[in-house]
């Protein structure tokens, strides 16, 4: 058409380039990948040869011993795992609420104390659950108690972080109202803050329980109780079929518990 052909094309504004940040980031990521691959000794061919080679774990994987559910010892270990998860969640997740409140500006007017609590939370969060278990087994000895203590700190780590994040987004209005009526700090937190986060918090506790259930399964690997000890036993003896049978049975249960937990959590909101 004439109008489009005649006049010289208008000059477009300068094209915005891809942000330097994104380009830089991608380059760093790529470089990091190459460097790490080298230092770890990554080799695709090696992976393929190793996977295709005949090996016991994979064979055991193909014929897992479903009979593990009937084994008495496995069942006892299983129940111990459950109990560890319950108690760990109960004590750990409940302690997380005051700890999280204590790390907020409105819950802890003292700046230094607040920083101290936040730093402690950060340190606790950076130690993985199995390391806690290792430490406690060394200090206190093998057995369920070490597992319990490890789960306590792990639960603190998980739930405090989630609760703190939620507390960052609450409505300050009721807090102002409670303070304006002469309530004490504890009363203000109990009536103006906790009701706002209670559904989320309960949801976190349930989630924490799911995590603890999974965690308590592996704590036994270092001797802290639960089915982890059975798993370690089977591994040492090379009995992969039983090992996989146990693993699958256990995680089937975990899966079911998770589904229940999700429905419960939906009901809360």
């Amino acid at each position: 058409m004439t109008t489009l052909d005649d006049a010289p094309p208008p000059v477009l504004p300068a094209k915005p380039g891809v942000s330097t940040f994104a380009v830089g980031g991608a380059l760093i990521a790529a470089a990091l990948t190459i460097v790490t691959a080298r230092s770890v000794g990554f080799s695709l061919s090696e992976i393929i040869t190793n996977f295709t080679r005949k090996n016991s774990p994979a064979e055991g994987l193909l014929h897992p011993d479903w009979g593990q559910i009937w084994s008495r010892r496995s069942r006892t270990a299983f129940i111990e795992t459950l109990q560890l998860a319950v108690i760990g969640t109960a004590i750990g997740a409940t302690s997380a609420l005051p700890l999280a409140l204590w790390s907020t500006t409105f819950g802890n007017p003292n700046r230094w104390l607040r920083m101290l609590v936040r730093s402690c939370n950060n340190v606790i969060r950076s130690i993985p659950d199995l390391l806690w278990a290792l430490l406690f087994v060394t200090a206190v000895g093998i057995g369920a108690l070490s597992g319990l203590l490890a789960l306590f700190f792990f639960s603190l780590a998980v739930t405090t972080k989630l609760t703190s994040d939620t507390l960052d987004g609450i409505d300050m209005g009721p807090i102002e109202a409670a303070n304006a009526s002469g309530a004490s700090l504890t009363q203000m937190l109990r009536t103006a803050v906790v009701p706002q986060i209670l559904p989320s918090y309960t949801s976190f506790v349930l989630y924490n329980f799911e995590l603890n259930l999974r965690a308590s399964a592996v704590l036994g690997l270092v001797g802290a109780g639960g089915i982890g000890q059975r798993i370690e036993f089977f591994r040492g003896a090379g009995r992969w079929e039983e090992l996989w049978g146990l693993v699958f049975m256990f995680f089937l249960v975990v899966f079911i518990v998770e589904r229940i937990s999700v429905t419960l959590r939906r009901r809360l909101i």
Partner: protein
Amino acid sequence: MIRFSNASVTYPNGVSAMKDLDLEIADGEFVVIVGLSGAGKSTLIRAVNGLVPLTSGELNVNGHDVHALNRAGLRDLRSDIGMIFQGFNLVDRTTVLKNVLMGRLHEVPTWRTLIGKYPQADIDIAARALARVEIIEKTYTRASDLSGGQRQRVGIARALAQDPSIILADEPVASLDPPTSHVVMRYLQQICRELGITTIVNLHFLDLATTYADRIIGLRDGVLVFDGPGSECDDTVFESIYGRSLTADDTMTKHGAL
């Protein structure tokens, strides 16, 4: 009684929200404060219960020097002063009753608050407060299920439950429609007259101010520029308080008509 003597408030960012204020409010008065946004209305109201500390000067409330009170003393003072907010400041997830009971927190021991079991006497007081604002049928309703006007009534009930000698209302009707605004203002006026509670209200709708106030205080840039009965206030007076000519936004009826 509330007395400001040469009181000033300067915020950390340098803004001077109150300049050498001299003001005396006797017991049982119904006072309305008007002024543009930023004129210092909120600051004045929040200074009375110590939420905003004075930078200089004196403030005496019910015989106590607010500046000299320690934390416990401030809590005692605040328990005697009820406050009503523009945003209602209710806990949305809990019931109306629990919200009103927040007014009794100062009198109820902490352990009872923690488990949520309030003494029957305090529940009775809450019930009376709810009855007074005619919302008792909603006692167990969640606060989030109420309309704006109903929420503000719960706010008033909460303040009443404190059994205060002073009620501070910071723009209590700014979020409400005209008919509801009148309802709320009428409650405040009734409460002041029947219970003898000193009431200080911030308003930005001038027609509401003249309708309900015994005494109007005008603030401009933190300075008191008018102090007199509502009958004396006409548009010229308001224009001098605002320092500009009035617009439709300044009166509720005209604003509502938009």
